[in-house]
């Protein structure tokens, strides 16, 4: 039998149910793997005792013939999710020490489905970043290394970088991510794993620290499409506590998985051919077309004419919403408070927020504040909102000639930590392929396609119609089967 830590969600679930190993053995194996991977800095806090407790319950449940969907499966939870009784910081200093007396809907559903929690995963601070370099708790180091003999530490992508690195390093079988402009998909691509951003409203946002409310979506990250389908099924569903949650039935996605794409049309958006895109990514994209054709689909070229405005619009809308969403971190009720001698209320705010937020967070709060200011609102926010409507229309028009869109996930492979940290614009460009579908609220999947010349993973993205997670995952499955991506980072930690 393979090492337990090399098993995915479905394999653990089935092996546990089949009595090949106990849930406790699984929890112990992953707890050990987590403890042995401190060099990757994937976790902000670990909760081995919680994983063990859930495992013991799972073992009892199995004995009683009463297992739940995820009984026996330990997971990592991104630190953006509030977890009852466990510090939840969004990787920020301002929330350091904050222990919520409540559980986010999504993490609560996973725990209620029998999953155990291995710990809270590191991330970019308040989910703002594409490299996991903005965490107050330090960079996450990707388990991957270039094959050039150098030893440069690489970015696991962001913002769900702790999640992507932990899954790629096999210290968790799967974990939750959140995606606002690409924060599930880009790190999945950088680390050679699968990530699904569902339709906006599929997963409740209740209890997830808000970054940009109209864009934030929770989703699963794992090493296979099937594992993502299993997790998403447990995470999704209507929630009365989130007014933007969709009141739609949750399909049985796992059972619906099929890589037969006969009769499906795959659109290739011509505007996604950006300048300076590495040859290897273009080649993989073409390879992806072939794979999907091989799965029975027809390939058509489509146009999404407003694509080039998506990134600028995103970097107005997301910071605008963030500037308001982060106003609650003021030192009055919870989290860090800086109270200089003799400070008044305004001075307390200023000191608390100056000390509590990192540079990238401050940058986005300032951008957001600026674009909403009197005299600038129409030129920025209103324009961006209009662009967003045009982007939605672009997709609607594309759906008249195709069922899914195939694009690269990110415009490059993983870069070195520190390589882009002085150039925010270059960093923001990482989201160029993921942002349009975020603005339109559409489901998308990132699937590993192969390695580049430096031995680093490259990903492909499939975007689908609203609520068609099944179709998106099916197309992802077709890619996964044909790519046969079995590479993994060599253990150095």
């Amino acid at each position, binding site marked *: 039998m393979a090492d337990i830590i090399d098993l995915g969600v479905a394999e653990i679930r089935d092996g546990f149910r089949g009595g090949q190993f106990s849930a406790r053995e699984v929890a112990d194996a992953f707890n050990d793997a987590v403890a042995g991977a401190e060099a990757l800095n994937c976790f902000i806090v670990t909760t081995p005792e919680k994983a063990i407790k859930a495992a013991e319950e799972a073992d009892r449940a199995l004995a009683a013939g009463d297992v739940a969907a995820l009984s026996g499966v330990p997971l990592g939870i991104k630190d953006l999710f*509030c977890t009852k009784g466990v510090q939840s910081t969004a990787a920020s200093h301002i929330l350091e020490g904050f222990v919520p007396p409540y559980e986010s809907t999504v993490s609560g559903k996973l725990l209620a489905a029998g999953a155990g929690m291995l710990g809270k995963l590191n991330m970019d601070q308040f989910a703002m970043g594409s490299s996991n370099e903005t965490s107050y708790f330090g960079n996450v180091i990707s388990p991957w290394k270039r094959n050039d003999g150098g030893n440069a530490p690489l970015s696991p992508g962001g913002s769900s970088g702790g999640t992507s690195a932990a899954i790629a390093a096999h210290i968790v079988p799967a974990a939750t991510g959140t995606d606002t402009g690409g924060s599930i998909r880009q790190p999945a691509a950088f680390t050679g794993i699968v990530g699904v951003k569902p339709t906006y409203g599929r997963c409740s946002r209740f209890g997830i620290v808000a970054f940009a409310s109209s864009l934030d979506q929770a989703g699963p990250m794992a090493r296979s499409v099937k594992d993502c389908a299993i997790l998403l099924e447990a995470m999704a569903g209507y929630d009365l506590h989130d007014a933007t949650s969709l009141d739609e039935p949750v399909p049985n996605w796992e059972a619906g998985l099929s890589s037969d794409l006969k009769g499906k049309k795959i659109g290739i958006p011509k505007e996604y051919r950006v300048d300076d895109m590495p040859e290897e990514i273009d080649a993989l994209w073409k390879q992806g077309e072939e794979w999907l054709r091989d799965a029975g689909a027809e390939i058509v070229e489509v146009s999404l004419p407003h694509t080039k405005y998506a990134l600028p619009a995103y970097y107005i809308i997301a910071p605008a919403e963030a500037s308001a969403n982060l106003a609650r971190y003021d030192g*009055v009720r919870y989290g860090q408070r800086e109270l200089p001698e003799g400070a008044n*209320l305004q001075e307390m705010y200023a000191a608390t927020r100056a000390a509590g937020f990192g540079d990238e967070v401050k940058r986005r709060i300032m951008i957001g504040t600026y674009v909403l200011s009197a005299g600038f609102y129409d030129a920025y926010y209103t324009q961006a909102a209009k662009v967003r409507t045009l982007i939605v229309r672009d997709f609607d028009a594309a759906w008249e000639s195709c069922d899914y869109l195939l694009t690269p996930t990110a415009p490059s492979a993983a870069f070195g930590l520190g390589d882009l940290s002085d150039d925010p614009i270059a960093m923001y460009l990482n989201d160029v392929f993921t942002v349009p579908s975020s603005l339109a609220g559409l489901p998308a999947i990132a699937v590993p396609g192969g390695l580049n010349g430096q031995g680093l993973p490259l990903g492909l993205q499939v975007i689908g119609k609203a609520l068609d997670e099944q179709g998106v995952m099916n197309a992802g499955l077709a890619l996964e089967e044909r790519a046969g991506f079995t590479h993994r980072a060599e253990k150095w930690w």
Partner: protein
Amino acid sequence: MVVSEYRIQGATGDWEVVIGLEVHAQITSNAKLFSGASTEFGAEPNCNVSLVDAAMPGMLPVMNGECIRQAVRTGLALNAQINRWSRFDRKNYFYADLPQGYQISQLFHPIVGEGEIEVSLDEKDPEGTVKKIGIERIHVEQDAGKLMHDQHPTMSYVDLNRSGVALMEIVSRPDMRSPAEAGAYVRKLRSILRYVGSCDGNMEQGSMRADVNVSVRKPGDEFGIRTETKNVNSIRFIQQVVETEARRQVDLIEDGGTVVQETRLFDPDRGETRSMRSKEDAHDYRYFPDPDLLPIELSEEFVADARASLPELPDDKRHRYENELGLSAYNAAVLTAEAETARWFEALLAESAKKQDKPESDVAKAASNWLISDLFGGLNKAGVTLEESPISAAQGAELLALVADGTLSGPLAKQVFEIMFETGDDPEKIVEEKGLKQTSDTGAIEAAIAEILENNADKVEEYKGGKDKLFGFFIGQTMKAMQGKANPAVVNQILKDKLG
């Protein structure tokens, strides 16, 4: 258009004051606008606070549909346009009583648009002038919490019980021209809100308060620059703000100064307003649509249901009282000014009609007169409100029935009323126990009269000699002998017979 005569005398002539009011009315609801926390008044600090109200990380607002329904009903009662599509916006500013760092409000697309109400300068003088005051809009928003500065020598405490409570901001047109008009507008608005049941209108508990916009101009000129005095919490103070602020502005202008557009505070102890912040350091609230909430789309059916749920409103009721019940304009105005009074009157009327087996229109006049003169008089003297009345509507109707069937004379009824007011006992019980029943027993009356005529033979002679005025003397003597309980009509008849 009624032209107000209210003028401020200045050195350069007469000035006119222009007033617009933004009334913040707390929507009557069990739960807050976006959370399930209770809205009960007077709870211990921070006991009515949910995780949402405290703006804990990841918490989301979920709209309370009842608050929306009440806002729509209010809009309909103010003859206003209901916007079938509206949306919530975030109004961003930092303050310790505002946990989210923004207030959820409606700037761009309020739920209620233009409307108007009719205001009588003296609600109780139906012949007085009536003026239409325009409503610009009503929007729904969250209230903030409260800071307490007297709990600690160097720190302020925050009470979030009010945080998230639903408010309607009812914005008038600048249509008022005197303190009296401003007062009358607020009274009328409060009356309508109470009828509708969308706000209890208790200004002393903070359920209703007003931002008072005041400017002055020479009559006929363009509007002047206005100031806004925030959070004024009684009608008397609103009128004082208008008076003092208009006076201040006139004096300022006439001294060569200019009015600055600014926010001011009213100090009731000193009876003056003072500057809070000027336009230069005014907040930039950076309003934008709240992405946590979907737009509110109202179906035609929802609006129709809201309309159907409205009670008869004060103006309609007043007209009906006059036209169908035959009440005087004054009585109709008094009885309809407050929903509670009208409710009480209608209960009295229904009971009276039932007890006397007559149509309401036949008993309305007596009932309205008794309520306004006897009961209100008694309540006023005792200093209690109608809600606290020791006499119920059913008891009042019983008393009126005893008068109508001749059991009680007018004077006896007054006596019984006094005792009812004192003890809360039923009138029949009082009549029985105290023997206050009016008697029509002709035998007893005849016996009494016979004795009186015998003892006053001289006066009988004088009467018969033509001194008619003595008839009153005989009546008085008879009533006295009967201890006031004789039926005056019977006494009258027997005396006439005996005296020939």
